[in-house]
């Protein structure tokens, strides 16, 4: 299973890296926009005043055998859920993965939607269906906030369960400021012509950034799951090897003890007869 997890991890990792190029370009484009002097205001970027309904999207695995992966994510999720219930009248749960579903139903949480078709390679179309639905509900004012809990990927040796607010997309507004403040290399200081206008480009880029962000969460979760499984299975294999060697030793000792005993008995018997 360690080998299977390793192979799946490689695939998931490749996909995550490929997706990185897209998000990177989006961030760069937002930076260019900010430098072009367009003020970055967009309905998806502003905090809502009303606090009627929030959605919490929880990304867990379909299968276990991956150490503390699901547990970590679910603990963070429950903490965030309690936080949200304090501020919002109603909190809907969207759960991805059988593990999360059974954990939460067992604890009597009401789950609005659940998805079990995501494995180690979520496709953009699949994720986009969920993202679009949520985006639409946010735009029409049906929900006021969307949080996601997933295992965030920092490096191969470090992933942490993390809870983030993705609608409103305050993160993007923050990158805006950073980008314009930092000293960009001269090549990206080009004066761009915007078609039709910086505002219109911004209008389009915010939903795109949201979709890309959601997709990245799914990819991070997939990579995190495979890494967790790989580590857990490696530990299990090593543990089993160790157990086998200690059991073999015990078995050999017992057998040798028995043989020695029998020889002593035979020798004792022969001595008694002579």
């Amino acid at each position, binding site marked *: 299973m360690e080998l299977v997890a390793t192979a799946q991890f490689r695939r998931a990792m490749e996909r995550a890296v490929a997706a990185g190029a897209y998000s990177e370009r989006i961030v760069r484009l937002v930076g260019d926009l900010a430098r072009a002097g367009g003020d970055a205001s967009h309905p998806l970027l502003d905090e809502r005043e009303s606090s009627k309904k929030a959605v919490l999207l929880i990304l867990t695995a379909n299968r276990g055998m991956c150490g503390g992966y699901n547990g970590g994510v679910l603990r963070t999720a429950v903490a965030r859920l309690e936080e949200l219930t304090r501020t919002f009248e109603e909190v809907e749960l969207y759960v991805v993965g059988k593990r999360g579903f059974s954990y939460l139903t067992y604890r009597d949480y009401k789950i609005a939607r659940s998805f079990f078709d995501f494995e180690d390679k979520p496709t*953009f179309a699949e994720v986009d269906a969920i993202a679009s639905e949520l985006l639409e509900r946010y735009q029409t004012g049906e929900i006021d906030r969307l949080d996601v809990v997933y295992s965030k990927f920092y490096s191969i040796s470090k992933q942490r369960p993390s809870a983030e607010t993705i609608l409103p997309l305050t993160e993007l507004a923050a990158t805006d400021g950073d980008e314009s403040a930092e000293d960009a290399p001269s090549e990206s200081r080009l004066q761009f012509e915007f078609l039709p206008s910086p505002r219109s480009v911004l209008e389009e880029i915010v939903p795109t950034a949201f979709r890309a962000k959601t997709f990245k969460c799914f990819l991070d979760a997939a990579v995190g799951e495979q890494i967790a499984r790989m580590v857990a299975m490696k530990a299990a294999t090593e543990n089993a090897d160790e157990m086998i060697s200690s059991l073999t030793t015990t078995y050999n000792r017992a057998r040798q003890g028995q043989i020695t005993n029998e020889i002593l008995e035979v020798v004792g018997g022969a001595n008694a007869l002579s």
Partner: protein
Amino acid sequence: MKCVAVTPEKTVVERETKFVVVPLYDGEYAIGVGHTPVVGRLGAGELRLTLDDDSVERWYVEGGFVEAANDVVSLLTTRACKFSELDLNEATQALNDALNRPATSPELREIKTKAVATARARVRAAEKAARR
């Protein structure tokens, strides 16, 4: 001049070109060597790449952005496929789905208009691909 098209999943196109025609939100826009730096909003439609040997490669892209600077044209799009991979039935189905969406509030109407426009563009592209 280099042309790069990326979707959230992967880099779809990365090649040397002579001339690129991109589908902007309101019509086609051509980019040649030495074009002024530009950022544009893409619509759904045909992306035409004229390669170094004067052959033309056709792609279908759906929404996103194009950025041209320093003789590199980069497209960020949610969906990109070869023209020949378009499926007319699937596109027509998508158009019907879009037409059946509710439009009971201004926000929903806006979402619907956009979905319908995108689906129409895909049907047009698929029909064009079928004629070839």
